[in-house]
């Protein structure tokens, strides 16, 4: 079995999940210059809702082909409602406040969402119902499962859809204009509040998709899965260039590959001193290094030029 290829494939799949979540961060940042700290929790909500709806439906005998889309739809609805509420309650009143105020409310909202989820679903792990029979394929000595392929396809389709939305539609144009300069866009007749709400809707819908896919990837969902995931996805967005949509894709994929390769090889690299449990460290190291040495990220334009 080819270890390098295997790690690359794993990294790519993990990375596509990070990319999906990173998009949510980057879109909001592009428009509001706000780190939507609670985004990871929205992904968690998506995962919890989709897993529990899927479990309930399959238990009731609904066929998988129907149950899966229904579970996804439920997750999208709940995530969108949550996302919009968060924007309304915690961010909009503070839109002209100093940067730190909305960051602190965002942390508060994260704690609230996490604990509501814990009270609602309990502390135990929810396991993803085995609705799809796992098949494993052999690709050049590495293995890929049908679930992994499905994840990759759905993630790619979702991101393609987002790119179309942003580049080809009126809403997308309004979003880009608002990201360029909120005041001017407002003067040009763009309803800025609507655009911001739409951004949260789209971002939360992406989070719902990501939640379902992540739950299927790991086979479980848990009330505190959102935090670290959100932080990693944020790191990915920063790596690619925060505010930049292709950057989030690139950053997500890169982070996935780096983590996966890093976890595989860190033992060899450090002479056995550090083991694979240090996997989580890469995202934070990248975050610190990128922010310190190249805050604009790989594809980011210089954010300050806009000011």
């Amino acid at each position, binding site marked *: 079995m080819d270890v390098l290829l295997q790690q690359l494939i794993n990294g790519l799949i993990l990375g596509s999940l990070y990319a999906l979540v990173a998009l949510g961060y980057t879109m909001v940042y592009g428009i509001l210059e706000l780190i939507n700290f609670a985004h990871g929790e929205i992904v968690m909500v998506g995962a919890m809702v989709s897993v529990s709806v899927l479990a309930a439906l399959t238990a009731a005998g609904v066929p998988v082909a129907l149950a899966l889309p229904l579970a996804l739809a439920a997750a999208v609805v709940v995530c969108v409602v949550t996302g919009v509420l968060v924007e309304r309650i915690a961010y909009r009143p503070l839109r002209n406040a*100093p*940067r730190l105020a*909305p960051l602190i*409310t965002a*942390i508060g909202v994260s*704690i609230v969402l996490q604990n509501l989820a814990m*009270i609602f679903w309990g502390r135990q792990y929810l396991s993803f119902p085995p609705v799809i029979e796992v098949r494993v394929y052999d690709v050049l000595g590495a293995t890929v499962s049908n679930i992994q392929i499905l994840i990759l396809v759905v993630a790619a389709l979702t991101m393609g859809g987002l790119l179309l939305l942003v580049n080809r539609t009126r809403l997308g144009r309004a979003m880009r204009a608002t990201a360029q300069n909120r005041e001017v866009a407002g003067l040009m007749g763009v309803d800025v509040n609507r655009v911001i709400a739409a951004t949260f809707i789209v971002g939360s819908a992406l989070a719902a998709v990501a939640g379902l896919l992540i739950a299927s990837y790991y086979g479980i969902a848990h009330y505190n899965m959102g935090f670290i995931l959100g932080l990693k996805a944020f790191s990915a967005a920063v790596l690619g260039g925060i505010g930049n949509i292709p950057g989030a894709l690139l950053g997500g994929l890169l982070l996935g590959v780096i983590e996966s390769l890093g976890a595989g090889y860190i033992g060899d690299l450090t002479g056995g001193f550090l083991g694979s449990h240090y996997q989580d460290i890469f995202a934070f190291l990248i975050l*610190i290094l990128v922010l310190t040495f190249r805050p604009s990220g790989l594809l980011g334009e210089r954010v*300050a030029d806009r000011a």
Partner: protein
Amino acid sequence: MIGLLPDRLYRDRRIAWAAFGVLAVLLIALPFLVEAGLGRTWVRILDFAMLYVMLALGLNIVVGFAGLLDLGYVAFYAVGAYFYAILASPQFGLHLPFWALLPMGAGIACLFGVLLGAPTLRLRGDYLAIVTLGFGEIIRIFLNNLNAPVNVTNGPQGINMIDPVRIGGHALTRPIEILGVQISGPHAHYYLFLGLTLLVIFAAIRLQHSRIGRAWAAIREDEVAAEAMGIHTRNVKLLAFAMGATFGGLGGGLFAAFQGFVSPESFTLMESIMILCMVVLGGMGHIPGVILGAVLLTMLPEALRYVGPLQQELIGRVAVDPSDLRMLLFGVALVLVMLFRPQGLWPSSMRARELRPDNPDQVRQEQESLYDAER
């Protein structure tokens, strides 16, 4: 002319001193009153309250005085705690004296603060917050995993049987009789912590009303103007970071010796956020407010334990685990305070409104960082 002017700085200090005096008398009797009224567990809770007052005052230097949001404060707390735990426990069979290790631990934490701050302090506020958060997580991951190949931290199990504080050969954990009064472990720790807390409060007040304290405030208000007035903003910010880290390390050493046990569980992000809550809820930058915040938030979760029995009585079962409810309430409180009382529960009368967005110009200035314009 000078003599006629109301002397705000000095008057503030005198009020603080007077409050100090009255409080000191009350505070000496407090553990006995508390034990009589609520039981010995509450004396321990009091001890923790003192510990958190020290930590919150340390973070307040960074967040309240200098206006830098540090979400990884617990990392410095952890460094102080593990430094003591490793060098005064059976982990390596070392039992170095508490009074030597405590300042050293604070010094090491200070060094960590400088190491983290030096490259990152030029970042804009929210980026800095995220970077410090990442740093805190990295420290925790290391604590969790540094049990192999050489067992330094003993991994997730943590380090046990840490040496207690000793004063003149007497271990503070043992009860002692002084002038016919029984002093239990928690009581003795209370007086030790109280003394140190008073020192920390004293230092914080003096720092605030000093040349350095004014420089911190100036940076918080307008970094560009502060720099233009000759303040070496990077160094002065670094100083705030280092001071905060030092206080954190100090608290860590005390925590390890008091608890006798440390594990990575005690140093999660939630702990950082909790200490931040104490600062924000109490009143950023206002020392009495921060003290109030720390005491309130240490007591609150303990008080919430009674929510369980209360539910039992009212609806016949425990519907919501009180410890679950506790974090939920913290989250709600954070949001509400930012929305409706951004200046905190007990803000200073002078700086009551720094977080209130009533001056768009000021907000805009705050959002431009120093060299943004040129990059």
